[in-house]
C-alpha cells in the first residue's frame, strides 16, 4: 500500500522554531542567527556589537560550539548574559537545542539576542532556530568564490557582512564581483564591508541591526 506523505523532513524542527519565535516575540526579544565558516569572526563581531550597543539596547548571547566554552567566557567578560550550547559533535544548531538554551536566557532583561551558530557554511542554512534575521559573515581570506560553493547560505541570508576588509590590499578578493553575485540571487540582502580590527563598517552594521529591531 502506498501512503502519500508530501511532508517536509525538517517539519519537526520548523514547529519548534515557530514556538521559539513566539516565545521571543512575547518577550519582545529580537533574535539574530549569526552564521559563518570557522574563524570568519563571529565572536569578534559579537564583541564589537555589544560594545557599540552599550546604553542603546540590552543584549544577550547564545554561543553554539561543537565543544568548549571559550567563546562564552570571552563574551561574558563584556557583562552580558551568555548561554553556551555544546552540540557534542553536531555541526549546526537546531531549534530544539535553541529552545533548551532559551529557557536559560533572561529574556525579560534583554531586547536583542545574538545566536552564534556553529562555524559551518552548509548545515546551519537548513535549520531555522526561530530567529528573526539570518546574518552571514564571510571573511575575505576565505575567497570570493564562496557564494558559488555554498549557495543556500547566501540565498537565505538577510545580511552578509564581508569581514576582515582591512586585509583587502594583501589578498586577491574581488569585493565588487562578490557583492554582485550575492545580489543577483538574493535581492533583499544587505551587504556591509566590516573590520573588527579597524572598526570599519561596524557603525553601519549596528545601525542596520537597530533599524531591523524597529
Amino acid at each position, binding site marked *: 500500500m502506498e501512503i*502519500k506523505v508530501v511532508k517536509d523532513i525538517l517539519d519537526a524542527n520548523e514547529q519548534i522554531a515557530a514556538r521559539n519565535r513566539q516565545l521571543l516575540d512575547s518577550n519582545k526579544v529580537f533574535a539574530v542567527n549569526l552564521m559563518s565558516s570557522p574563524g570568519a569572526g563571529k565572536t569578534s563581531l559579537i564583541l564589537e556589537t555589544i560594545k557599540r550597543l552599550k546604553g542603546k539596547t540590552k543584549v544577550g548571547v547564545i554561543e553554539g560550539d561543537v565543544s568548549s566554552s571559550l567563546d562564552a567566557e570571552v563574551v561574558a567578560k563584556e557583562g552580558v548574559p551568555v548561554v553556551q550550547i555544546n552540540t557534542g559533535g553536531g555541526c549546526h544548531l537546531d531549534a530544539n537545542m535553541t529552545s533548551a538554551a532559551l529557557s536559560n536566557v533572561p529574556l525579560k532583561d534583554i531586547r536583542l539576542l545574538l545566536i552564534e551558530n556553529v562555524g559551518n557554511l552548509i548545515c546551519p542554512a537548513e535549520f531555522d532556530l526561530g530567529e528573526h534575521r539570518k546574518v552571514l559573515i564571510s571573511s575575505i581570506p576565505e575567497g570570493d568564490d564562496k557564494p558559488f560553493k555554498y549557495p543556500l547560505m547566501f540565498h537565505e541570508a538577510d545580511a552578509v557582512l564581508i569581514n576582515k576588509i582591512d586585509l583587502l590590499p594583501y589578498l586577491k578578493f574581488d569585493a565588487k564581483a562578490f557583492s554582485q553575485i550575492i545580489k543577483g540571487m538574493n535581492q533583499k540582502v544587505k551587504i556591509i564591508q566590516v573590520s573588527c580590527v579597524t572598526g570599519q563598517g561596524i557603525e553601519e552594521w549596528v545601525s542596520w541591526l537597530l533599524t531591523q529591531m524597529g
Partner: protein
Amino acid sequence: MHELAITQSMLNLVLEQAEKAGAKEVGKINLVIGEMTGVVSDCVQFYFDFISRGTIAEGAALAIKTVPTQARCRGCNKNFELKEFDWTCPYCQGNNMEIVAGKELFVESIEVE
C-alpha cells in the same frame, strides 16, 4: 554532516506515518532532495541503514529523486538550470535571478505492508 540529523527527522516522519496507517513494515521510502540543500544521498542511505535497525523501516529501500537547482532570470523571465560557477542566464547573460527549484527536502510517499 547534517545528513544524520536530516535522516533522523526523515525516519521519525516515516515511522509516524506508517504507525498511523497501522503498517507492519515499510518497504520503500520515496524522497525528494533538491541539489541546493547539499544533502548527500549516499550519506542519507548510510545513516538510514544504521538508525533504522530495530524499527519497522529496517531494510526499506530508499528511492531518492534529486532535483537540480533551477533559476528564473529576472531579466528575460526564462528558466534555466544553475550550473556550478556559472550564474549567468544562458539566454540574456543577465545575472539577476530567483531560485525556483532545488531547495526541496521532503518525503513524497511511503510503501507499507
